[in-house]
């Protein structure tokens, strides 16, 4: 189910209309005007990158890195092939916004990628699409055909002399490929295992060539910024994070779905938009930024605004914008057990602390959940976490540790109760 507030990417998109994804619909909504203006008026790369900086757009894939700054790192004048790559490998539990962008407004992403390519001197782009959403991959291919036919892709686009080709690449079931360098290896036809950094993709990316990688939502925001104005976008959000943001709300609410709202909107407002708590139950805890972000208890969350700084100050991360809502019936040990299982399953196995550590985290939480917890297990979890965080090639190990630490920090009594009484403190119901 997809429900939207008017915003940037979903402005005037009638998601109930089965043709809303088409080129015609996009053109009627002012689509491709930003690109045409850039090409007709020969707007410079510097000026576009300056606008991207002014917009205050921060990466929507999880890390929140400023997009304009990222683009400026590309060696634009270097000879030879350069690439723009879109990360649509959306697999962060609780996040389902990129899928809806490609389902309902794929041309916003295509236009964004063409403009990005122009701005960083890349003549080829790839969109890496999550394995489980094959129908979306087909939809995106159909949109690409339309764009090619209309002369927005290919050689000498709109008579400007600028060439750009864009292709879709389909993943096949590996969460780790969402990490940008694993994604590049996967795109090269290898196992998706993160690379050591440096070198960073801007100097050594796809096929060893300079590459910029951005999230779907980041790139789909670009046409709006360059058409309606960077300042207009910035003003929709807060000083340290411009624009609206898509929040995927899942779990115990009446209307799970995507909500595109200004950064800085109070959490209570978002909860209300999502129809409030299902069955009138009490809110217990929220993971505000996808499963890799620390959990926050209701008392903190209800005071929080939905923007990078507010959530960071509250002790978590805005991350990917996956907002997971849990009610009073959830046993925190059981919930954490499922997440720990996930990270263990998805560790790519390259780094010993991650490969072994995620296994240990799961084992220990599993035994606590099954009434076999030991008195010092919580200390053990803490020390395993210390040996993992910050000691690995990629951030998956940290992502596995954050939930463990935050669940125990805020609901220690439930974990202790479980160890002592060998059962849940609350009578657990998933839903």
């Amino acid at each position: 189910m997809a429900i939207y507030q008017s915003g940037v990417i979903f402005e005037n998109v009638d998601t109930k209309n089965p043709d809303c994804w088409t080129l015609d619909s996009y053109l009627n909504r002012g689509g491709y005007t930003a690109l045409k203006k850039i090409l007709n008026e020969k707007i410079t790369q510097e000026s576009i990158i300056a606008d991207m900086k002014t917009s205050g757009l921060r990466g929507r894939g999880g890390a929140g890195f400023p997009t304009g700054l990222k683009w400026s790192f590309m060696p634009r004048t270097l000879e030879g092939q350069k690439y723009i790559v879109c990360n649509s490998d959306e697999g962060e539990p609780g996040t389902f916004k990129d899928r809806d962008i490609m389902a309902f407004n794929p041309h916003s992403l295509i236009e964004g990628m063409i403009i990005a390519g122009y701005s960083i001197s890349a003549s080829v782009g790839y969109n890496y699409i999550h394995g489980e959403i094959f129908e979306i991959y087909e939809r995106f291919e159909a949109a690409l055909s339309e764009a090619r036919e209309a002369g927005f892709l290919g050689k000498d686009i709109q008579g400007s002399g600028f060439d750009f080709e864009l292709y879709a690449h389909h993943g096949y079931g590996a969460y780790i490929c969402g990490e940008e360098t694993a994604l590049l290896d996967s795109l090269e036809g290898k196992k998706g295992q993160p690379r050591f950094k440096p070198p960073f993709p801007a100097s050594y990316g796809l096929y060893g060539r300079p590459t910029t990688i951005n999230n779907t939502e980041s790139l789909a925001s670009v046409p709006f910024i360059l058409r309606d104005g960077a300042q207009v976008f910035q003003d929709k959000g807060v000083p340290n994070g411009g624009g609206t943001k898509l929040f995927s709300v899942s779990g115990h609410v009446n209307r799970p779905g995507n909500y595109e709202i200004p950064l800085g909107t109070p959490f209570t407002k978002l909860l209300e938009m999502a129809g409030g708590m299902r069955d009138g139950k009490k809110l217990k805890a929220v993971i505000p930024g996808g499963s890799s972000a620390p959990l926050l208890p209701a008392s903190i969350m209800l005071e929080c605004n939905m923007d990078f700084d507010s959530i960071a100050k509250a002790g978590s991360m805005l991350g990917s914008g996956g907002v997971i809502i849990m009610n009073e019936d959830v046993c925190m040990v059981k919930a954490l057990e499922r997440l720990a299982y996930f990270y263990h399953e998805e560790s790519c196995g390259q780094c010993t602390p991650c490969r072994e550590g995620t296994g240990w985290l799961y084992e220990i939480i599993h035994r606590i959940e099954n009434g076999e917890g030991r008195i010092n297990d919580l200390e053990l979890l803490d020390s395993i976490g210390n040996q993992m965080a910050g000691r690995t090639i990629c951030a998956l190990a940290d992502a596995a540790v954050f939930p463990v630490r935050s669940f125990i920090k805020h609901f220690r009594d439930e974990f202790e109760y479980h160890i002592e009484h060998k059962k849940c403190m609350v009578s657990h119901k998933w839903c």
Partner: protein
Amino acid sequence: MLSNEALEKIDIELAKYPDNRQRSAIMSALRIAQSEKGWLSHELVGYVADYLKIPPVQALEVATFYGMYNLKPVGKYKLTVCTNLPCALSGGVDAALYLKERLGVGFNETTADGMYTLKEGECMGACGDAPVILVNNHKMCSFMTTEAIEKKLAELQ
């Protein structure tokens, strides 16, 4: 080993990548091969590798790394249920339990009549539509309540 139609599809994928980068097409080529044959035997993986002119070991490495390739035969319909936390909060685990009972199999098992294989899935990027079930990797079914599951099973004959 593969139909002309499948090979044509692989050719379309190959054309997306630069010259001498045909290795990039291995993921799609294996997907297309699997869609036609149901699962990836060693022989089939080797055939696809030959078709792309890459060493078989490179193709095998990919087939074993990514979770959606079937390295063993599966039932006519592979049903993958997402049970990750966000889905669990909206019926994902219940849907999996229901299917286990209804089909009389556990995860990674196939019904005796060879019709269904049940798999546990990780986040499919569709948590707002929970419970979600993926049929044969490519068809996503949303809001799979007990009634919806029954309806689907009746369709999948």
